[in-house]
């Protein structure tokens, strides 16, 4: 029994060794086999078989190459598409900026066109008038006091204290106010609607002299009109020749109402005026020279004018 077991063990060992030798030989001869096969393909004049082999191989390789080509094409196309998208995004951003700039330019152009039209009208109007002075733009409006504005011309441009100021609104020339402070480059204008402003005036039809004074509430009133005077609504009111500050014949406005009555027991009435020039919307003004020369104090020591 032991002999049989020994024989079996020996037989197993021999069989395993034979198998390992077979595997080792197979692997040892494999590179030789492939090398000889390659040499055979290279050396032998097997043009037709090689071509046939190529054709046969093409059935294996060409689908892969087509797939590879498709992948490469897809990747290349993807790159172009991504590049185009990035370029489109950049162009989009630039175009948006351009549109924003053009909108601003357009708005500025619109403003300039309106300004040009307005100034042309003013120029045509003042060619026909006798007044001369300094043209100025309203640079700033006093927030705390709406009846006061600052013009962009000052004493260095010839503006003097107490100078009358005329404005133009929708082609109508009218009284706007007077200069109450002057600096070298700016001048402060008291508008006609201020309660501290007043000017002697006359009614164009009834020829009655009165005092046009600011109401302090954005309007003016024609004061000291006798109770029995025959006035009509819409009657034009001009500055009077007796005014010490303003030239005569400057339109102030028109009577808004003829039925206004004065205070209880008063012998005068004070009808409100509809102003010829809206002080809040005027943008350019003509600052005239003072009727009686420069005021004392000048630009260095501006002083506030009280009622005339």
């Amino acid at each position, binding site marked *: 029994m032991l002999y049989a077991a020994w024989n079996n063990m020996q037989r197993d060992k021999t069989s395993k060794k034979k198998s390992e030798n077979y595997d080792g030989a197979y692997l040892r001869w494999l*590179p030789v086999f492939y090398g000889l096969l390659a*040499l055979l393909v290279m050396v032998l004049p097997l043009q037709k078989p090689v071509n046939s082999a190529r054709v046969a191989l*093409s059935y294996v390789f060409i689908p892969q*190459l087509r797939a590879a080509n498709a992948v490469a094409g897809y*990747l290349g196309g993807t790159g172009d598409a991504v590049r185009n998208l990035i370029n489109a995004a950049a162009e989009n951003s630039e175009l948006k900026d351009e549109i924003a700039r053009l909108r601003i330019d357009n708005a500025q152009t619109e403003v300039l066109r309106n300004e040009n039209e307005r100034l042309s009208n003013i120029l045509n109007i003042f060619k026909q008038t006798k007044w001369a002075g300094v043209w100025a733009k309203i640079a700033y409006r006093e927030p705390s006091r709406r009846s006061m504005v600052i013009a962009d011309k000052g004493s260095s441009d010839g503006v003097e204290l107490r100078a009358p100021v005329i404005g133009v609104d929708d082609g109508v020339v009218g009284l706007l106010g007077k200069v109450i402070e002057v600096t070298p480059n700016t001048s402060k204008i008291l508008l006609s609607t201020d309660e501290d402003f007043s000017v002697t005036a006359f009614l164009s039809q009834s020829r009655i002299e009165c005092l046009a004074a600011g109401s302090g509430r954005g309007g003016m009133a024609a004061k000291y009109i006798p109770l029995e005077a025959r006035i009509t609504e819409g009657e034009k009111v001009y500055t009077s020749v007796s005014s010490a500050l303003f030239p005569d014949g400057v339109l102030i406005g028109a009577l808004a109402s003829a039925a206004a009555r004065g205070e209880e027991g008063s012998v005068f009435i004070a009808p409100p005026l509809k102003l010829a020039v809206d002080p809040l919307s005027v943008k350019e003004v003509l600052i005239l020279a003072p009727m009686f020369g420069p005021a004392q104090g000048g630009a260095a020591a501006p002083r506030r004018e009280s009622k005339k």
Partner: protein
Amino acid sequence: MILKFFGTFAVFVLATLLHWVFVEIFSPLDINVGVMLVFALITAACAGRARAYTFAFFCGLFLDFFADAMFGGYALVFTLLVFAFHKIENKIDFNGVGPQVVLTCVINMAATLVYGVFGKIFTGVFLWQGLKSFVLGSIITGLLMPVMYLFTVKYFMRSAGGRGNENRSIL
């Protein structure tokens, strides 16, 4: 067995795809990148010898399919290089990035020279692709190796490390 066959075939398909992509990129620059050689070496390092020789032979045959002359030349060169690789693989650590780059670079140069010599012997013309392709192509091939090695090991093999692990590899 079937799993290993399909795994090897998948690597072969991947190799041909990448070869085509690299040809598309580097051919205009007159640079020949040895993508097929890279995968032949990876298979030689990670799979069994039988599959490594077969894989290398067919990789070479794939290149011969596109070569103008000496059909079978690349198959012979790749078979010899895998044989030489198996002779030296016990003396190097092919898992390291440095050895992978250097060895692949050197083997690619050797492949170019051997192929040229074979061309001289069998066709009478030394098949030379130019110094730029010889140097830059070998360097790019060497740099390609660690990336392809990691990718192949991660997605096509359970482990790497030569013939001792072939039973655990799908290659």
